[in-house]
């Protein structure tokens, strides 16, 4: 009997458990959910297109890579121990954007690129990401890029798979074998290369005039964010639903000079925020790579275990040796999974101080990095109003 190793065997097991439990008058369990294999459209091997010459000034768009999101599970979907892995994904949402940002910087195709906690009206292009799946073997991201006028540049899923050989020996670092961060290439670098190349392709299709207009829209959008009463009328929506500049203040308008001053201060702030995200990634990179290495080891181990189980033939023997072997295989697979969960919890423990540090960075501001960012934007708005004598009762409180 070719026992188990396929989904029908799992169903047989479940059915028998259900029968036994019915006899024991316990309520029936939910059926075992066999994950449906989704075909992944892998990006393959991708070389990053790097700029040979400095692109035109209008092409040097300022990009914000927003901290990623992740699909939240429904309350009923959680199983015991799931929270540990949920916490890891939550952490990945904060530092995977940094890898994309580094790739965009390496391409030399863009202006300033920063990781930002939220969408930012002072930037030309915002990249949003959702982590669909992330482990040592597979990374699947939903990426959406939208410019300040509302034009969608990208909205698609990118997936890549790694192999154990992409994790060099230095990922199992010890005191004698330290992690080589400089020469380490992320096993999912192809995804980031593909996204960067796709963005360049979209930009090339737009033309110089659209890019020049985009820079103006961004300027007026930021001015409108600072002082909606003064500037909101200068931007309108065209027939395509895109924002365009309707009226432009004169070049020597003192208000615009103040807006530019505020934008400069704001960019100094988001540069600092971006540096914190970079420091966070540098702090945790060795542990994160090690974690991914453990993750791919575990996936490989499970695949071997499944193959072994499919080869096992328990049907012909019911002796003690056969019974104890069945029990031991179950026991060790469970212990192995528990150890993996412990490693995941250990990874979270190890990263906790780095995240605490990130959230306590900006002096004078409180809360998470997202809250500090919002607080800062509020401060700039009030400052702008003060400088322009637009003090309202609310803003002075």
């Amino acid at each position, binding site marked *: 009997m070719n026992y188990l190793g396929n989904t029908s*065997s*799992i169903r047989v097991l479940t059915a028998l*458990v259900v029968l036994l439990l019915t006899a024991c008058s316990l309520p029936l369990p939910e059926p*075992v959910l066999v994950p449906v294999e989704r075909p992944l459209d892998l990006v393959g091997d991708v070389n990053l297109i790097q700029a040979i010459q400095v692109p035109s000034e209008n092409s040097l768009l300022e990009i914000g890579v927003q901290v990623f999101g992740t699909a939240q599970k429904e309350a009923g979907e959680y199983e015991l121990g799931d929270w540990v892995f949920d916490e890891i994904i939550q952490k990945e949402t904060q530092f995977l954007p940094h890898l994309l940002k580094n790739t965009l910087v390496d391409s030399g195709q863009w202006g300033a690129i920063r990781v930002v906690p939220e969408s930012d009206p002072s930037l030309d292009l915002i990249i949003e990401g959702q982590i669909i799946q992330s482990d040592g073997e597979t990374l699947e991201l939903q990426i959406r890029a939208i410019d300040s006028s509302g034009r969608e540049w990208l909205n698609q899923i990118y997936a890549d798979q790694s192999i154990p050989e992409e994790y060099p020996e230095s990922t199992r670092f010890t005191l004698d074998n330290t992690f080589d961060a400089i020469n380490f290439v992320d096993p999912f670098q192809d995804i980031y290369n593909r996204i960067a190349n796709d963005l360049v392709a979209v930009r090339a299709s737009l033309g110089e005039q659209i890019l020049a207009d985009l820079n103006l829209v961004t300027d007026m959008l930021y001015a409108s964010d600072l002082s909606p009463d003064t500037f909101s009328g200068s931007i309108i929506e065209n027939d395509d639903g895109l924002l365009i500049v309707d009226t432009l203040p004169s070049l020597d308008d003192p208000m615009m000079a103040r807006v530019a001053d505020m934008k400069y201060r704001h960019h100094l702030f988001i540069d600092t925020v971006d540096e914190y995200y970079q420091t966070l990634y540098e702090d945790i990179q060795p542990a994160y790579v090690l974690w991914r290495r453990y993750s791919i080891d575990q996936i490989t181990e499970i695949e071997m275990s499944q193959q072994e189980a499919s080869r096992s033939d328990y049907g012909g023997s019911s002796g003690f040796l056969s019974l104890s072997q*069945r029990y031991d295989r179950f026991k060790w697979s469970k212990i192995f999974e528990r150890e993996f969960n412990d490693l995941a919890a*250990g990874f979270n423990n*190890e990263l906790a101080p780095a995240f605490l540090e990130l959230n306590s960075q900006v002096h004078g501001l409180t809360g998470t990095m997202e809250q500090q960012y919002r607080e800062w934007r509020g401060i700039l708005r009030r400052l702008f109003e003060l400088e322009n004598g637009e003090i309202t009762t609310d803003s002075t409180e």
Partner: protein
Amino acid sequence: MLIKVENVVHERGLGLSLLASIIATLCLTLSISAFSQDSLPQLDLDLPLRLDFSGSWEKDFRRSDNWEDELSRTLRIRQESTARQQSSPGSTRRRSTPPISIGNVNLPRSRGRGANIVDLARLAEYISRHSIIDIVQTRDEISIERSGEAALICGVEYKLQQTFANEHGVEVCGWEGQQLVFQIMLPDDLIIMHRFTVSSNQLVLNLLTSIYSKGGEPFNLIQAFNKYEAPRDEFNCIQTLSRGQVCSQAGTDLSTVLDDF
């Protein structure tokens, strides 16, 4: 006049003290509500309250079944049952179990038959060798650690929970009244059931392990455990990924230890 002044002062004093007591009451009420909102954990009434299984438990060998004695007793009962059935041929039998005895090597081992009772008994003994159990119980979850075995972990909810499933077996757990039940379904219809019961004074823990094979009669083994005070750990340890266990002396804040690395 003095009396009048005194009265006024007295009345004012009364008014002030009344005002003060109102303010004090208000402050107390506010502080109590603030305290109750901030400091006290909210009790989730949807979660059932379970008996407390937590603590360190050591096996009471005197009160626990000896597997060989239990095997002999089970065999004797089966033989008597078989004899009764033979003497009254009309009576129905739950299943056709051949007469067996220890060392009977002639048991049929076809696919249709389960393991013999001796092998089930030996398996029961094999998985019950641990003499110490450590149980940690929270408002949401109970975790049972046995040396050399995988931990048994279950939530406290009413519903049945699947705690582990792979190609080597499926484990579910649930509560029957105040008994905690784990069932492990292994390949070839081998089923292991652990049923934990704690005495009302929480000093004695009973563990009934039943082993079923292909729907046949189970072999049952009861073990009793007494609570004992395990020595307190001298160190607080926290698991990390790259540095393994990071420990500090009990009473030290571990976050400062992690920061130091």
